[in-house]
Structures are given as C-alpha cells and as structure tokens.
C-alpha cells in the first residue's frame, strides 16, 4: 500500500506539470512508484479514448467505469469488446441498465444540442441498498479552423443515495480543454488544462426516470458553470498574466497617466 504522502505528492506533481502530458506522466509515475498505480488510475482524469461498437456501429467513450480487464462495454449494445469469458464480470441490475439506456438517449440529445457533434456515453452501476452511481462522458474535437484547434472532454461522476421521495446526488466534474493556434506571425501557442468542480444536491424523485432528468439538470448546470469558468481562466486570467509580465504601453507613460488621473480626482473632490 502506497503511503498517503507519496500519493498526495503525485497528485500535487500532476497539478503542476504540463496538463497536456498528464496521461504520459501518470504512466511514468506508475512506473516509478508501482504502489501508486491503482489510486492514480482511479483518481486522475485523462482525455477519453474512443471505440466503435461492433454491434451498433456507433462510437462510444472509454474510461475505468466501462472497463473489465482489457475489455470495454458499449453503452449502445451493453456488450463487452472483446467479449468476457463466461462467468466474468458483474452484470448490472435490470433496473439500472434501463436507467442507463434512458440516460444514454437523453445525453445523446444533450450532446447534439450543445456540442453539435462529438460523442457521448453514460455508464451506470449498482451500489448497495438499491442505490446507484454513474458517469456521463462527452468528447468533442475541432480540427484546425482558421489555424486554431481544440479538444473538450467532460467527465462527470456521480453517486445517488435514495431517501424515499428525494435523492441526494453528489457530482464531481472534470473538463479537460486543449486549445492551440499556429501561425507565421504568432508562432505556436498552446493553451491547455483541466478544471474540477464538485456539487451536492437533493432533488425529488417520483420514479426511475426522475433520476435521469435530475442528473441531466445537474450536469447541464455544471457544464454551463464550468464553461464560464474556463472562459474566464483561459481568455481572461491567462491573458492578464501576460499583461502583468509585459506592458505594451510604456510604464512611465502609464504611471504619468495614473498620477494625472489621481490629481484630477483629488482636485474634483476638493
């Protein structure tokens, strides 16, 4: 068992090193400290990989939650690829698979409305006492449009605890956003990273389809929130820091202007 200090330090390191290299750096950390492997793979989000469902022909997204050994489960066919050996894997309850199917249909609509393309996948699994948990995954890439390119990965993991007519939802969301531009006059510019947010909410539940609607509302609100946050950090904060490092107008002029402004204000207030 890895020490807690080593694990915390590994997370701290990943929070500092180039976020574009997170997947590679997780592999390197697992090599350097094999005892951290399980915890790191479970708690660090990396860009989602894509597989094609052999049965439906539709693409789906892969993460730790639809993986069993070297096989991945398609949310469209509910089948593992490559197929699991007999007796392997723990199938979901019918109730949870039914909700999962509904959620996949609902988030497919959501994906089309917000992403106008991309891929979505939803995976649910059973918890004790008839409760359940799941993850909602969304991925979209844009290939160079006017010399800029980008990729967005959303990873929403939630847990639902039923309380009679209400349920408590706990949602942890990560968005991995990579942007890049390349041009003669600009050179190369890479603006990439990830942000994480958590929220808990209690909502009323009439039947199983309420869960899908509740989770949908939470994910939709979270993504709106995070999109605004990303916009602020990527295009506001990062740009401001560049301005703090170097000033386009000359500093002595700026200081003179500020002094003049102060004088005007103080003379007006006299």
């Amino acid at each position, binding site marked *: 068992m890895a020490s807690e200090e080593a694990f915390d330090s590994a997370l701290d390191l990943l929070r500092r090193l180039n976020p574009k290299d997170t997947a590679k750096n997780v592999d390197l950390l697992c090599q*350097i400290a094999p005892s951290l492997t399980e915890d790191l793979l479970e708690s660090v989000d990396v860009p989602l990989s894509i597989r094609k469902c052999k049965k439906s022909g539709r693409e789906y997204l892969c993460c730790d939650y639809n993986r069993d050994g070297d096989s991945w489960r398609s949310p469209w066919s509910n089948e593992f690829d490559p197929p699991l050996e007999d007796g392997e894997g723990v199938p979901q309850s019918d109730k949870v698979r039914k909700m999962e199917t509904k959620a996949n249909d609902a988030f497919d609509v959501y994906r089309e409305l917000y992403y106008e393309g991309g891929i979505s996948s939803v995976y649910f699994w059973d918890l004790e006492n008839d409760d359940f948990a799941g993850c909602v995954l969304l991925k979209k890439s844009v290939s160079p449009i006017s010399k800029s390119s980008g990729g967005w990965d959303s990873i929403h993991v939630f847990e639902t605890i039923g309380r009679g007519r209400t349920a408590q939802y706990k949602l942890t969301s990560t968005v991995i956003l990579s942007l890049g531009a390349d041009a003669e006059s600009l050179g190369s*510019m890479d603006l990439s990273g990830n942000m994480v947010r958590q929220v808990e909410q209690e909502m009323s539940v009439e039947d199983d389809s309420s869960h899908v609607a509740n989770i949908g509302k939470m994910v939709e609100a979270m993504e709106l929130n995070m999109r605004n946050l990303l916009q602020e950090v990527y295009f506001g904060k990062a740009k401001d820091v560049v301005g703090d490092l*170097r000033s386009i107008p000359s500093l002595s002029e700026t200081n003179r202007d500020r002094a003049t402004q102060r004088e005007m204000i103080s003379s007006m207030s006299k």
Partner: protein
Amino acid sequence: MPGNAAALSSFIESAPPGELSNVTTAIKNIVAEDQSLLQSLGPAFEKYNEEQFTTVKLPGGSREVLVSEHNSLGDGRYYDVESQSSFAFDHATQKASAVQQHVLESEHADLVKSLLKSLTTHTSEHYPASTLSITPSTPSPSHIAIALVANKYSPSNYWNGRWRSLYLLDPSSGALTGSIRVDVHYYEDGNVRLLTNKAVDVKAGTSAQEVTKAIAGVERRYQEELNKAFGGLSEGAFKGLRRQLPVTRQKIEWDKVSGYRVGQDIGGNRTR
C-alpha cells in the same frame, strides 16, 4: 518507456515558472526510498536553470542576475557584465556564491555595454520586473547573446508567469535571430498552462540603438499578436467545441427529453 531517472528529469524540465522547488519536493516524497535517483537529477536541474534563465541575487548585491548557457564560464560558474562579476551557481538549490570580479574582455565589449544601456531603458519601460544578460555567447562566441526574463509569481492566488526572450546578434551583419516564449500556469481547482514560442529572425543593424529598436518592435508586435490569438481561440475553437446554450437559447426540458427528435423539435430547423 524511458528509465526512472529520465522520467524524473522530464518532470524537472517541465516545472512551471517559480515552482521548481514544489516539483522537487513532490519528487522527493514519491521516491523516498531511492536516494540514488535524486542524485541523478543534477543535469536536469542545470538544463532547467539555463533554459529558463533562472535569476538569483548575488551575495551582498541587490540586483538579480540570470544564468544561461550563453553567460556560462563552465564548472558551474556564470558571469554578469553589468556588475562585472562572476559567481558559482548551485543548480539544485538555485543559490549563488563565491562572487569574483570579472571584467569582460572581448572585441565587442563596447557594443555589449551600449546594448546594456539602451536595452535596460527599453525593458524598464515595458517590464515591471525583468532581468537582462548581454554577453558574447559562450556556445557561439561570434554572436552577442541578449537574454531577458520577466517573472511574476503569485502562488497565493495560484498563478505564476514567465516571459523569456533570447536573441543572438551577429555584430558583423546586424542579423538578429532568437525566440520569445511565454509560460503561464494557473492551478486553482485545476491545472491550466499557456505555452508559446515565437521564432525571431530580423535584420536589426549593428548599433545599440538599431538593435534596441528592432527588439522593441518585435516584442510589441508579438504581444499584440498574442492578445489577438486569445480572442481568436475564444471565438474560434472554444465556441466550436461547446455552445453556451442550444440554438433555441433555452435549457433542456429534461422531463420531455425522451420525446425530443434531435435536429427537428429542438435544434430549430437546422439542416445538416
């Protein structure tokens, strides 16, 4: 896969501005049982400090000087023309010691001194805090190396930034080549990094005034381009990834979502 020592070196080399000590501490905690791995990191620290133009205050001095391969004297010593001193630099602790007087002896000594004068005036007008080193380039002695670094660290607000410019001037032709790099790290509830690299190749001239004017022009144009690029990414790739709201400007009615037919009922009459 690279070996463990190479992996750790790659972590050191990609440490964000002002966070090398945090990265080193984290590495120490992770490889606690393997001290020999830590011993092998010397070359990575040296590479980081020389590439990032790490700044240091000389003992007894108030000004900061920087280290790079261009002002290296070998054996871990570097020199600074302005203060006429050389110093030993410990790459692991980023501390300077053993300061000695060092007078520049070079056929370009006069040009170096005029460049220091005119470029210091320029940098103090555009960088709230910056460090400049101008010397004949150690790896390329026929060139004058102009290295500039501006850092701003605000770890309590979870961000740090660095602007680095390096120019090699050919004093006989007046050609100026080099690069400008910006590195910004933001890490509150996440990890966001801006990394840029702009190659510079201009005909500057052979006088200190001409070179300063060329550098001022190149840097100003670059910063304007970079500011434009933030807008371009925001309006281009970012918008193309995820909309703020669906075309209808309304949030989804999740209770009715199973009745939606994509692209018709909700998405307006969008044709694909």
